[in-house]
């Protein structure tokens, strides 16, 4: 039997990596730099999280290392995209292929085998919520990273809705020339936004290896970074829309996981795993109107003195 309740509960946890990654992607794209390398930053974050937890025995250290790892990869992307004015899609593809190869290589180096790592300390539950009456047991059954993702979601929404910083990021992404005449350091702001997107993608990865699981699996991001970017498009680059799109995809992700559990007509897991992607492509194809991003998204901005 397919349990609707299980799907709903599960779609909260499948939304988490999408939320982190797509909010990161949103911040980066709002500032005018596409970050298609998010997929690579997720897998790198998942790997770094496992490494941190494995060597220190502390999952929190793992999470911090995941953020650093994702941020460092993003810094490479920022350097190529902003300082070098290089092709952003190419750089991002390089980041993703590098991370996939690097993490597979690192896994073999550490454990002398392919597939997955040893189990490590993780953060599966939030025990401080356990004592809350009635709902405490439900709340406690989710990883603290789930709540962190909700906080980040609220924060990003607030950032773009109410803060001058959000407006500045918006201006830099729409028209960097105007932004510069207003006294905004275009490069600096873009650097910050891209690195933040990497840190968030790293958190998404940490959730995969330390929140949902307690180990690292090769290619465990399985295309979530791209789903997250599709959520940015579908959400029309508005925080609220992006968050809703994430939950939309996560329901289908939860659905396919649930179908695997109940052995739906004996369909193999590989076929079921494609469901979110098919849904995503269909939605992209049939959504109304052209998806229009920030005007200067993906265009390098070269300073006058350069």
């Amino acid at each position, binding site marked *: 039997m397919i349990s609707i309740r299980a799907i709903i509960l599960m779609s909260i946890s499948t939304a988490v990596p999408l939320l982190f990654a797509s909010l990161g992607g949103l911040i980066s794209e709002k500032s005018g730099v*596409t970050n*298609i390398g998010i*997929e*690579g930053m997720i897998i790198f974050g998942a790997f770094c999280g496992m490494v941190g937890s494995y060597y220190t025995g502390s999952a929190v250290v793992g999470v911090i290392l995941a953020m650093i790892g994702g941020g460092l990869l993003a810094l*490479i992307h920022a*350097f*190529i995209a902003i*300082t*070098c*004015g*290089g*092709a*952003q*899609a*190419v*750089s*991002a*593809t*390089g*980041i*993703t*292929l*590098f*991370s*996939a*190869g*690097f993490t*597979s*290589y690192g896994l*073999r*180096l550490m454990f002398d085998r392919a597939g997955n790592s040893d189990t490590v300390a993780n953060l599966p539950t939030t025990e401080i919520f356990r004592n809350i009456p009635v709902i405490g047991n439900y709340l406690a059954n989710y990883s603290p990273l789930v709540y962190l993702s909700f906080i980040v979601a609220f924060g990003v929404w607030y950032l773009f809705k109410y803060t001058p910083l959000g407006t500045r990021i918006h201006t830099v992404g729409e028209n960097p020339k105007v932004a510069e005449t207003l006294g905004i350091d275009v490069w600096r702001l873009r650097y910050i936004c891209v690195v933040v997107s990497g840190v968030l993608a790293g958190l998404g990865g940490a959730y995969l290896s330390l929140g949902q699981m307690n180990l690292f699996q090769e290619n465990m991001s*399985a*295309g979530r970074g*791209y*789903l997250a*970017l*599709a959520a940015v*498009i579908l959400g029309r680059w508005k925080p609220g829309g992006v968050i809703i799109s994430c939950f939309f995809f996560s329901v289908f992700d939860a659905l396919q996981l649930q179908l695997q559990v109940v052995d739906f007509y004996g*369909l*193999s897991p*590989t*076929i079921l*795993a*494609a469901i979110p*992607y*098919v849904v*995503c*492509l269909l939605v*992209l*194809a049939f*959504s109304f109107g*052209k*998806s*229009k991003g920030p005007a200067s998204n993906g265009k390098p901005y070269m300073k006058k003195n350069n």
Partner: protein
Amino acid sequence: MDKVKKLINDIKTPLLSIFFSFLVGATLIIFSGKNPIEAYAALFRGAFGSPAALSQTLNKSISLIFTGLAVSIAYQCKSLNIGGEGQLVFGAFGASLAGIFIKGLPAVIHIIVVLAVGFAFGAIWALIPAILKIKKDVNTVISTIMMNYVSFSVVSFMINTFFKASKSDFVTMEQVLDTARLPYIQFSTFRINSGLVLAIIAAIVLYIFLNKTVSGYEINAVGLNPVSSNISGINYKKNVLISLLISGGLAGLAGATDLMGSMGKLYDGYNPGYGFDGIPIALLAKGNPIVIIFTSLLFSVLRVGSITMQTSVGVSRTIVDAMQGVIILFIAAEYIIVLVVEAIKKKKAGDKL
């Protein structure tokens, strides 16, 4: 003299990218406590060390030339097709169907038919990303990679449900008919698949198409400047569509030739990674189809040689995947390489003074 200068300028970035990727690779090898020189020696021995090794390297380059051409033609229109892998798998599936079920044709005709079907299946798989790009301006990186996951699933489903060979321990389709196999050309201990000839012909045809025909010129113009080419009457949408369909078709041919040459039958779970190799291959060649023949050789050296490196020195062959990413990053960051070259020049000038 100017021509030589231009040539040096053209190959500077690719060569330095390759150099840096080997440097990063060496660092990773040192981390694993192995000797990088020993590892690279094993790699080159594995790729060139014997006639059999050399044949294998050349044969592996067949599919890589096709995927390199596939990425290249799409990138002429500034769409990055990273879904070559899915198009390749779907092309191999189509070719397998045509190779098994179309019977009674003479070999030459059958081969042409199977290749055509492989091309068509690959092109179909690129159609949806092309439409998304034209109608909704969806970045092809996102749409093509999603089509990869769908392709693996659909083909796996088809093989498992409808086309599973009965007398086999593995989940696989039937062997394609002998009339659909690409023959090997054997001289002494060299054994080269005739697919190599097809791949080289494809590269030459594409070179002529891009450089000597009006359609090729239009595709180039759209890539260089979509806005102004539109003003001068070149249809942007049509050219993006054409370049992505040809791209998908070429990736489909990569799968078809792999099937008709070395494999013979399509296994469940087939995804050899050639589609991703096509990205650095095309970028290193800067879109020149003739140069792609040589850059794909580099990757078949890495792929074939890394097996020996793994077995004899114990360095995991996944290192090649990381190196591939590094090459792409350095090409994207052409600017750093220019800086490094200038710094070296300055230092040399300083030494002379």
